[in-house]
């Protein structure tokens, strides 16, 4: 189902993940968040940007426990825990944040 952002249409798969990662722009995350009844703040963006950097480096979307550990290492223990990450992304920091970031569904999330 395509998603409409600023008058442009972007293709997504049946679970709502962006099909072409290269098309991503921040507005896509905003629209996806609105559909999930979330308002993105700086804390959300910190994780979304972290995920995009992770994908750039490793070519995969990390599983949630890998994300949690990596966030803890980079941004500190107070952020690298599931309670914090779930407070930002109630549908699961792996799945929901990856979707907002334009990444595929995490590898190793079961």
């Amino acid at each position, binding site marked *: 189902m395509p998603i409409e952002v600023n008058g442009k249409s972007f293709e997504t798969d049946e679970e709502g993940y962006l099909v072409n990662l290269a098309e991503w722009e921040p507005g896509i995350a905003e629209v996806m968040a609105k559909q999930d009844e979330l308002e993105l703040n700086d804390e959300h963006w910190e994780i979304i940007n972290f995920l995009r950097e992770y994908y750039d*480096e*490793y*070519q*995969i979307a*990390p*599983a949630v*426990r*890998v994300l949690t*550990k*990596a966030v803890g*290492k980079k941004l500190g223990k107070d952020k690298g825990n599931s309670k914090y990450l779930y407070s930002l992304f109630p549908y699961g920091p792996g799945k929901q944040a990856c979707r907002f970031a334009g990444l595929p569904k995490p*590898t*190793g*999330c*079961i």
Partner: protein
Amino acid sequence: MSVTKKFMYLNRRPPYGTIYAWESLEVVLIGAAFEQDVSLAFLDDGVYQIIKGQDTSGIDMKNFSPTYSALGDYEVTKLYVERESLEERGLTVDDLMPLTWEDEAEDWAEKDSIQLISRAELAKLMDEQDVLFSF
């Protein structure tokens, strides 16, 4: 309580041309969630999977070699490379990507994941596994 089993993934084919190498890596990353004792072995043309400087721009396939560097994050820290397979192809360990993992217990000390072993040693290791996957 579940019992930890020894899982070894054998990688014997070149990275591109077939889907085996990428499929193997995906299975390893997904399987890592089950917290088993996992190791990977690279032998025969499989050693090319972790060679440095891969460039797939001419063959229209995704270069997934950076993903091997994520194995450490997934707590997959034992990558065995068969020495004879390297030698037969005129390669040394310096031709391979420097794959490492970080030990949280030692303040994230960086450690080598790659261990060079002989064909005989690999045969012995294979014998000790509970489960072998051959790709």
